[in-house]
Structures are given as C-alpha cells and as structure tokens.
C-alpha cells in the first residue's frame, strides 16, 4: 500500500472560524457597510479589524496544520498550530468512518469525514475533518479495502413505516419547539402563540366525553409526532445497506447524505428490535451496535430499517451468520401455570389501576372524565405490557455458545440480541421468591459496549442455566 497524505479542504476554515462568526466577523462586515453607505466609523473598528486579522491568521495556520497520513496498516493524524498533536491509530482499532455531505459541502465538493474509535468521548467523534470528496473516497478505500458488496435497498413505504414506528411526540417537541422559537425571533412574529390559538380553536370543535384540555394536548402530541415522523423520514430516505464479506456500509439521508462504514468484526451485537408501534404492524428492525460509533445517538447503526421477522432472519443469516449461536436454547417451560406466572404482573397492575381510578373518582368526582381518560391510557399501556409478557413466554430463549442469543424484552421493546461470547459484559441471574420456590430464574445479559444493550428472559430453569454458564465460561466454583 502506498503512503498517502490527505489535507483538509479549504471549507474547513469556516468550520474553525464558526465560533467567531457572529461575534467578530459579522459586526465587522456591518461596520464596513455602515462606513461605505453612511460614512460613519465605529469607535471599535480598528480593534475589530485587528482581532479579525489575528483570528484569520490563526485559522489559516490551524487549517494548514491538519494532515492525515495513511501508511501501512496505520494512520497518523497531525493537527494544531501552537499545541501540536500527533495521533497514531492502527486500522484494526478504527471502529467506523462516517462521511457526511450537506448542501454546502455538495456545492464546494467536500465531505465531513469522522473517524471513530472506542476511545472517543460518548456521542463525539474522535477526529472530524472536511476533506475533498475524492480524497475521502480514497481514504476509506485504503482503510477498508475494496470488496464486492451486495446492495440492499428499501422502499420509501418501508422507510415511512420505520419513521412512523420509531418517532415519538417527545422527540418532535424537543426538536420542534426550539425551531419554532428561533423562527419567531427571526420573523418577529409570535408563531408559538398563533399555533396554540389555532390548536385550541380546532380542538374545541371536537365534542366528546373527555375535557377540552385533553383534546388540546392530544392535538399537540399528534402535531409533534408528525414533525418527528417527517424528520425521521427525510433522514432515512435513500436508505441503502451494502454488505460485503468483511465490511458493511449504511447510506441514508436526503438533504444531508450520510455514509457509515465499519468492519463486521467491530460489531458488538446485533439486535432485532420491535418498538410498541412496530408491534402493531408486526415488523422489526435490525440494529448493529458498533464500537465507538461517534456522534450518533447511542452508537447504533440501523442495518435493516423495517421488515418482518422472517425477512430479518434471512438478512441475518446472509450477512451476519457468524453471530448465529449453536447449541440447544433454554426456553421457559410451556405450561398454563408458567403462562400465568408471566401474566401475573400485568394482571395485578390492571387491578391496581382500576382500584386507584375508582378511588380518585369517588374522592374527586369533578375530575371523573379526566380520570377516565387517564385510566384508559394506563390500561392500554398495561395491555401492551401483557402482550410483551406473552411474547416472552412464547418466544423467550437463551442460547449460550461461542455466540450468544437472548430473546426477550428490554423495557417496552421486544428484543432479540445476538453477540459474540467475548462481548458479554455482565450476566445477571436473579430470583424472586416465586423463582426460589419453583427453581427458576431471570437472566439478563448486558453487552460490553457504550450503549450497553441488554435483554432479559424470565422463568428459565435455574439448574440448566447454571450448568451452561459454568460450561461456557469454565467456572470451577459452585455458583
């Protein structure tokens, strides 16, 4: 392999200067325009010019100092003008390379290239530069090599289902409210108030047994959910998976196009995940947890956005078969008694909800409609929880070999987790009083990774679990 040195794209100058843009550069431009148009000189103009010249000089020197030197099996990253740093990273230690291109990058022919390792800070790339598009392509081909990859595309309809099943009103509000406020400030119009008035006006037209505040809140949540849906849809449109023997590449995005490259050996675990909304449409998504994934939330790469369980199994066998465990799985005993054990907690919760609601209605009769609304919501959630418990009874399993499979749930999500035995962080075996009586246990496996994915299975036979753990991990003492 020939050594190659890559330099940062000139657009990196704007990235470095960004913190000073609104504080120095824009006031200076405004002062110069003022001088040209009105002939007035700002008293601080000389100082501003001096600061701008100083900052610009430092910026250019910092930009010039950035270099990526790709040598045999390692890269050397140099940067810094006053405080110079030099990092030496082996190819085998690189977790993933993310290449992003927004509209500005597209115009200037640059991309944002992020290099991630396991040593980086959570939710922050280790190294991030702007490179020329061709340079970035050559760079990741040097690291990951060129191999034939199978391309798997997903239709906009599938992406829409993914967006619909993974979006939440909470996310919509977190993202949407600041945008609304900033738009209001920019336009000098109270957009939030106008929107709220319109929502109140519309919700007052719905006559139902629930109080008007419920209609308003429901409408706000639906709008926030729709906003989150649109963001997720636009982010994931053009989703494409390219899978080779050793490497995988995930492409997505419409306005900002993103490519994530990683070696399959860097995957900590693969999850088949089913959120509550996905459960309604009986779909799953396949997610790979890649070590040191960078600035993505929770270091997860969506590998297959949405598919049925059988389709997902086909993709899994085809592209990640080395995660498939061997050996006989341990499953909860199939009996009516065991089913009742699984459904005991949801049943008790339902009775508790009804009891509390009845008490509130008796004590505070004025809030009967609101209480009824909240009770319906709580019972719906409990009903969903009961369906997850039933799924744990029907499909729960634990298979321990060189690869591990644990199929159960994590919170309100149904989850099937595959990982290499060496990636297991913690195995937690717990027993409640009924478990001790019936010699069963609950097993929770947590993967050794930043996102610490976990799954748990209940009501497995304790002796069988202990035997298999002792055998697989060569434990000599009695547990």
């Amino acid at each position, binding site marked *: 392999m020939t050594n190659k040195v890559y330099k940062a794209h000139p657009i990196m100058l704007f990235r470095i200067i960004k913190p000073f843009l609104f504080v120095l550069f824009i006031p200076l431009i405004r002062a110069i325009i003022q001088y040209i148009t009105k002939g007035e000189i700002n008293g601080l103009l000389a100082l501003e010019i001096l600061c701008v010249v100083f900052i610009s000089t430092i910026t250019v020197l910092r930009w010039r100092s950035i270099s990526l030197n790709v040598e045999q099996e390692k890269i050397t990253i140099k940067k810094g003008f006053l405080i110079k*740093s030099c990092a*030496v990273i082996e190819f085998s230690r690189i977790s993933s390379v993310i290449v992003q291109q927004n509209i500005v990058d597209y115009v200037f022919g640059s991309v944002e290239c992020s290099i991630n390792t396991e040593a980086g800070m959570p939710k922050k790339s280790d190294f991030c530069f702007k490179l020329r598009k061709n340079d970035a392509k050559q760079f990741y081909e040097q690291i990951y090599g060129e191999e034939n990859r199978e391309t798997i595309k997903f239709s906009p309809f599938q992406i829409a289902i993914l967006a619909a099943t993974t979006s939440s009103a909470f996310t919509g509000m977190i993202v949407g409210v600041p945008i609304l406020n900033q738009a209001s400030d920019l336009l000098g119009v109270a957009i939030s108030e106008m929107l709220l008035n319109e929502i109140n006006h519309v919700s007052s037209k719905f006559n139902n047994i629930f109080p008007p505040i419920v209609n308003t809140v429901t409408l706000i949540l639906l709008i926030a959910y729709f906003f989150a849906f649109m963001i997720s849809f636009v982010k994931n449109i053009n989703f494409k998976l390219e899978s080779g023997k050793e490497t995988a590449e995930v492409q997505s995005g419409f306005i900002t196009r993103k490519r994530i490259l990683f070696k399959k050996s860097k995957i900590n675990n693969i999850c088949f995940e089913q959120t509550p909304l996905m459960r309604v449409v009986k779909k799953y998504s396949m997610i790979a947890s890649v070590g*040191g994934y960078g600035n993505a939330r929770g270091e997860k790469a969506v590998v297959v956005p949405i598919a049925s369980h059988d389709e997902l199994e086909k993709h899994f066998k085809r592209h990640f078969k080395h995660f498939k465990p061997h050996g006989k799985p341990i499953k909860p005993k199939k009996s009516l008694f065991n089913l009742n054990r699984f459904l005991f907690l949801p049943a008790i919760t339902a009775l508790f909800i009804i009891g509390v609601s009845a008490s509130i209605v008796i004590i505070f009769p004025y809030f009967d409609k609101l209480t009824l609304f909240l009770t319906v919501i709580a019972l719906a959630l409990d009903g969903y929880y009961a369906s997850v418990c039933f799924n744990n009874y029907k499909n729960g399993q634990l298979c321990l070999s060189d690869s591990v499979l644990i199929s159960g749930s994590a919170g309100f999500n149904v989850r099937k987790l595959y990982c290499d035995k060496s990636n297991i962080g913690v195995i937690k075996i717990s027993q409640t009083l009924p478990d001790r009586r019936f010699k069963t246990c609950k097993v929770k496996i947590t993967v050794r990774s930043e996102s610490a994915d976990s799954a748990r299975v209940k009501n497995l036979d304790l002796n069988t679990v202990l035997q298999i753990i002792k055998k697989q991990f060569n434990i000599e003492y009695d547990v």
Partner: protein
Amino acid sequence: MTFTLPKRTRILWQIRILIAFAALGAAVAFFARYANWLLFLAAIIVIFGLVFVITYVPFFFKSYKIMIDKSSICITKGILIKTTNIMPFPRLVFAQSFTTPLSSILKLKCVMLKAARGWILIPELKSTDVDYLLENLMVKRND
C-alpha cells in the same frame, strides 16, 4: 523496562507554573488601584508560587516511574498520595503525542495513551523517546 522523566520536564513545568502564578499575581495587582491590600495578596501569590515550584514540583516529578513490560504499561507518581495507573496493552486503542511551543524548544513531547473511555497521560519525555514509545507500543499491542 523502567524509566523516569528527564530533568528538562521538571524545568518545563517549573517555568509553566511560575508563569501561571505570575499571571495570577499580576491580575490581582492590577486591581490594587481599588484596594491596596490586593497588592499584598499578589505578593503572597507570587511567593507561594515560588515556594511551590522550588519545593514540591521537583519531588513530584522525581516520583514519576514508568514501567513497561510484555503485557502492560504502569505509571506510578505522587508524593502525598501515591497513584498507580496500569494499562494492559490489549486495551490500548491509540496513542497521541502533544507538544507546545515551550516544550518543543526543550525538545520534549507528552503522550496520551487512550483506552475505551479512559486514558493515561505521560508527562513530557524526550521527542526521540516518544517516537520510539509510539512505535513500540503498537508492536507490543499486536504481540
């Protein structure tokens, strides 16, 4: 293999700490126009800095021991509180060196060894030693 920090590292840090205390003293003295007692405080800060640099800093840097064996690197330091940091080579992700204008005049570089969600900082060593360390850490990790 055990090695200690070169004398130049101690001198470098003495200069840095002196500059820091002098800057702090100057900042406090600047405000003495509003309260005369601040001048006295500035003098105390500078004297404290001098005493700190002459007494504590040499002993602190003398306490540094860097041990490298087949499987790990171990750094021991401290006078009042002794600290030992051990990093097994398989956990090493990458190494990064830093140099400032002052340290480059003295031909010194410091090294940061990065592991998953953790790091060890080795204070300034000779530039040639740092380059040797960076090359050999990668070899030892692969062994």
